[in-house]
């Protein structure tokens, strides 16, 4: 052990001090790779942990929740429920969660029995019950009263006893501010838009009298807690199964909601590995080069009696140390990256899935450890072969001159590459597997891996072909000659370029295909002139609706030709959160909404007892046309026959479309969440929008043009993180190319000196390096293009379909790919020239 450390210190670390650039660059590559991975993991965490049920900031996490799969629960169920658990010590809190607007700000209203809240301090010694800054000691009468967060009151210059007016649909509600809510160290922070009221008061807002969103149940701490919880859950689940209700924990609930973004987050995580993966190639070849350059040293060590095992250990330790240092640096960098990444991810999740109540990436040591392990493992993998190579050096090499061949990487031959390509094709046909209700395109991911490695190896077949095309000159002859018997490092450098180029371009193909599909879909579905919604596109606030009193005022004979109506409700369908959408078309206009059909129904009208489902729903639950599905409603489960399947890119959680009569009849709900208005030809949409908006300030009104622009903006935003990751991959690839060329030329230093000795100028040597680098870049680009086409196909027709359930039209952004290739070639040539020029010293000796 001591000998190992001594050798490590003298042979490895001293070399680092003498030639710091190489280890530094390796550390930076690892750091960037780990930072990318870690920042995405933190952002993903924020997207999940940032989602708290709003009540948690007040009460902490409940032990059980009772809710209805069809939305609201009848309040009087609480009497039955409390009888079911009898004398078990369970504290029940019926909760209303609803929304309203204060000016234009969306406020989340929580209604809960404020007096009963006091009991939470009895439940747990560590639980702090609600802290309210001030209380009107004269009364515990909470009629027309509300409590607001301290920060909100400060920001709006409001105080106790001030009036607080909110609007919901076309109704206005006025409350007196009774006090403030401050943060508790034992709870998630109070969301700044929270409004707390007594249950009865909150029920008034939106007319939810007699209804609650759910009932939370808490069991006190103590040695019998788990027993009580088990008993209670058993009894309640039995009750629930006979009463159209669901019992789960708040953890289950959060999981069900955050599950909605799981495919998105998983794909982001996989993408984040891209940088590290590309970096692995370069780390491997750099370490290999380093071993070969130090072959003499190693031979001397061997001739002094150091065993091969020790050599292997020492060289692997070098990899390990680079991995550790790089990974730790990566964690620090990653934390800072994460602050930017989290904004992108959270914004996307907010827009598409659910509202995140607290955001900001915080350091997570579990994820940090995972990222460090990942970085170290990558380094160890990269260092394994070179370390084995080092161990194989014979003592006799100490006396030999010249540098021996290409090392252990020569297995990266086109033959192996072709084999992997075949495997990739085979794996692409494997169907997805389901883990925890999540569909994972395992075949697709493995296939992608095989394609990446396969193409990287296979395209080295192009070495002699491309090399032949170089112009005839001493510089190009010398460059060409390198590819007759290409070294392992050449193959690796090419592999890295192919994978970086290929993966980045594949993402480009995916994005371009999305763009095309989305544009086409938008053109198809957005036919109306004006679109009205009860709230901004934020998925969580969809319990806001527009009453019939309001929406009936949208149309009149002079201005409008017709109106399509939609009422969306979140329901639990087969343990998943999906949308139930009631639709009604009242359009006398010739322009009609046309859905894009995956399975076209026989009849274009949606009749009673029928449903159309979205493609993601079809794929998630393997539902076919003609199947019967059970829909939960306040009046029990209703069966509907699936008649058609349509494309829907607005969400991947799935939608069940029914006639709006279904909603009216079984939900007793005549409100809507969306309307599409067809104006008369002479009506200016912008003017009409202004008129309606001024009349109904709390609803969202957009012209067709604006809505398209907004939709596409959201789409671009969702890919903003992807673009960043692509750029990082290319950066690493190009950095790696410079590293490769440096390594190769350093290794051939003596040769370069010889060239100078026989009269070759520095410029000619630089040109030769440039040709060599250019050859690698060309092959990298060509191979990358081939890889991108394969990966693009895989992403569009396999991974995307299996993860999100969407069918996309393929679109290849030839221009972008071409530009990327030019960029790669230019940078490759420039970097190689620079390295070549600087490797030759002014003085030959």
């Amino acid at each position, binding site marked *: 052990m001591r000998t190992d450390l001594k050798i490590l210190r003298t042979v490895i670390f001293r070399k680092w001090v003498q030639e710091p650039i190489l280890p530094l660059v390796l550390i930076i590559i690892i750091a960037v790779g780990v930072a990318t991975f870690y920042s995405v993991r933190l952002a993903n965490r924020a997207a999940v942990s940032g989602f708290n049920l709003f009540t948690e900031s007040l009460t902490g996490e409940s032990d059980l929740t009772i809710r209805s799969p069809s939305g609201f629960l009848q309040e009087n169920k609480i009497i039955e429920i409390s009888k079911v658990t009898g004398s078990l010590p369970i504290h029940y809190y019926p909760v209303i969660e609803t929304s309203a607007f204060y000016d234009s700000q969306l406020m989340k209203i929580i209604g809960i029995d404020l007096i009963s809240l006091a009991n939470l301090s009895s439940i747990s010694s560590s639980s702090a019950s609600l802290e309210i800054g001030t209380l009107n000691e004269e009364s515990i009468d909470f009629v027309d009263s509300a409590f607001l967060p301290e920060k909100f009151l400060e920001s709006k210059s409001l105080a106790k006893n001030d009036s607080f007016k909110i609007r919901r649909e076309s109704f206005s509600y006025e409350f007196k501010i009774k006090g403030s809510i401050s943060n508790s160290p034992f709870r998630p922070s109070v969301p700044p838009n929270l409004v707390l009221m007594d249950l009865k008061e909150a029920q008034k807002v939106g007319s939810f009298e007699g209804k609650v969103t759910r009932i939370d149940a808490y069991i006190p701490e103590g040695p019998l807690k788990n027993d009580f919880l088990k008993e209670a859950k058993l009894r309640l689940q039995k009750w629930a199964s006979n009463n159209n209700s669901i019992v789960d924990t708040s953890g289950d609930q959060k999981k069900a909601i955050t599950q909605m973004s799981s495919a998105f987050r998983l794909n982001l995580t996989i993408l984040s590995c891209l940088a590290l993966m590309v970096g692995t190639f370069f780390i491997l070849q750099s370490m290999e080069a380093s071993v070969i350059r130090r072959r003499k040293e190693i031979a001397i060590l061997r001739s002094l009696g150091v065993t091969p095992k020790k050599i292997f250990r020492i060289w692997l330790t070098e990899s390990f140390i680079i991995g550790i240092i790089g990974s730790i640096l990566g964690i620090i960098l990653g934390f800072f990256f994460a602050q930017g990444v989290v904004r992108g991810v959270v914004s996307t999740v907010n827009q598409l899935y659910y509202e995140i109540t607290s955001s900001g990436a915080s350091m997570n040591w579990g994820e940090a450890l995972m990222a460090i392990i990942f970085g170290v493992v990558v380094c160890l993998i990269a260092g394994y072969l070179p370390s084995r190579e080092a161990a194989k050096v014979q003592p006799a090499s100490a006396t030999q*001159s*010249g540098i021996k061949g290409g090392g252990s990487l020569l297995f990266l031959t086109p033959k192996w590459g072709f084999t992997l390509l075949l495997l990739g094709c085979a794996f692409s046909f494997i169907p997805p597997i389901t883990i925890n209700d999540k569909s994972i395109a395992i075949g697709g991911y493995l296939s992608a891996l095989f394609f990446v490695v396969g193409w990287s190896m296979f395209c080295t077949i192009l070495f002699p072909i491309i090399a032949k095309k170089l112009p005839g*000159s*001493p510089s190009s*002859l*010398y460059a060409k*000659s*390198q590819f*007759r*018997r290409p070294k392992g490092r050449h193959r690796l450098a090419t592999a890295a370029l192919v994978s970086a180029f290929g993966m980045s371009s594949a993402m480009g193909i995916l994005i371009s295909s999305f763009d095309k599909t989305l544009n086409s879909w938008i053109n198809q579905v957005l036919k109306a002139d004006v679109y009205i919604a009860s709230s901004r596109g934020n998925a969580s606030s969809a319990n806001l609706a527009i009453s019939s009193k309001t929406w009936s005022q949208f149309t009149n004979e002079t201005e409008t030709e017709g109106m399509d109506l939609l009422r969306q409700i979140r329901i639990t369908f087969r343990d998943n959160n999906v949308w139930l959408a009631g639709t009604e078309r009242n359009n006398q206009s010739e322009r009609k909404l046309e859905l894009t059909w995956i399975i076209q129904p026989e009849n274009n009208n949606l009749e009673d007892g029928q449903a159309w489902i979205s493609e993601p729903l079809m794929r998630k639950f393997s539902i076919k046309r003609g199947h019967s599905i059970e829909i939960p409603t306040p009046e029990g489960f209703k069966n509907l026959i699936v008649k058609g399947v349509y494309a829907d890119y607005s969400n991947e959680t799935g939608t069940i479309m029914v006639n709006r009569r279904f909603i009216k009849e079984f939900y007793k709900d005549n409100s809507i969440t969306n309307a599409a208005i067809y104006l008369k030809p002479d009506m200016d949409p912008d003017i009409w929008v202004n008129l309606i908006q001024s009349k109904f300030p709390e609803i969202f009104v957009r012209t067709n043009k604006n809505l398209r622009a907004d939709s596409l903006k959201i789409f671009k935003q969702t890919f903003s993180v992807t673009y960043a990751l692509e750029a990082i991959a290319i950066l690493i690839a190009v950095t790696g190319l410079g590293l490769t060329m440096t390594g190769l030329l350093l290794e051939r230093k*003596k*040769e370069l000196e*010889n*060239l*100078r*000795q*026989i*009269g*070759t*100028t*520095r410029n*000619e040597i630089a040109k030769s390096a440039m040709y060599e680098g250019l050859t690698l870049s060309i092959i990298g680009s060509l191979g990358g293009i081939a890889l991108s086409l394969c990966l693009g196909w895989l992403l569009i027709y396999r991974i995307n379909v299996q993860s999100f359930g969407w069918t996309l039209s393929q679109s290849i952004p030839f221009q972008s790919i071409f530009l990327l290739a030019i960029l790669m070639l230019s940078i490759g040539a420039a970097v190689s020239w620079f390295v070549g020029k600087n490797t030759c010293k*002014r*003085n*030959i*000796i």
Partner: protein
Amino acid sequence: MLEACKIKKSYLTNEVLRGVDLKINEGERVAIMGPSGSGKSTLLNCMGGIDQPTDGSIYFEDVNLSKLSEEQLCELRRKKISTIFQFFHLLPTLTARENIEFPMLLESVNASDRKKRTNELLDAVKIDHRAEAFPDQLSGGERQRVAIARSLAMRPKLILADEPTGNLDSSNTESILDLIQHLSSAYDIAMVLVTHSKKVTEICDRTINISDGLVIENED
């Protein structure tokens, strides 16, 4: 042809050459002998423009080498002065033929002339049957023949050879020395050979002994 006046060369605090004077005439073969560390190879490098003396001047064809630019020195090494090394220093990724051709490529000699000259040289060094082999496929003697052929490619005026037989066995040594002798006479090329070997001095017109960075004697 070549005159070195009071050549001094130091590396940091180590004075390797302490004031060397010598002359090389056209067509003559001169051996430079001396113990290890006497400065022989350093002197050779200075003569070939590969290294710069810290003091003194070297004139080649009345041109002071220290006054030449990098480009001019390269040109000199391509056309007028070439070097043969103990360890051959062939480009490992080029074949024997390509190694020989390389200096001609640097001077943009056209393809047919290049081919002709290369074949001539391959024949001259008796290595034509191994023209397409790579250096790692050749024996030591064969490699040195290729190196010699390469050094003749541009018909230099002066060839500097640093221990040309230092890495060869005795039979190869003899044949290489014969070759050197023959070619230098045939092409009227001056040669300076740094050596430990008495055999090398036998093919030379005179021997210069160097010790401790100074010329001790100049023997005929």
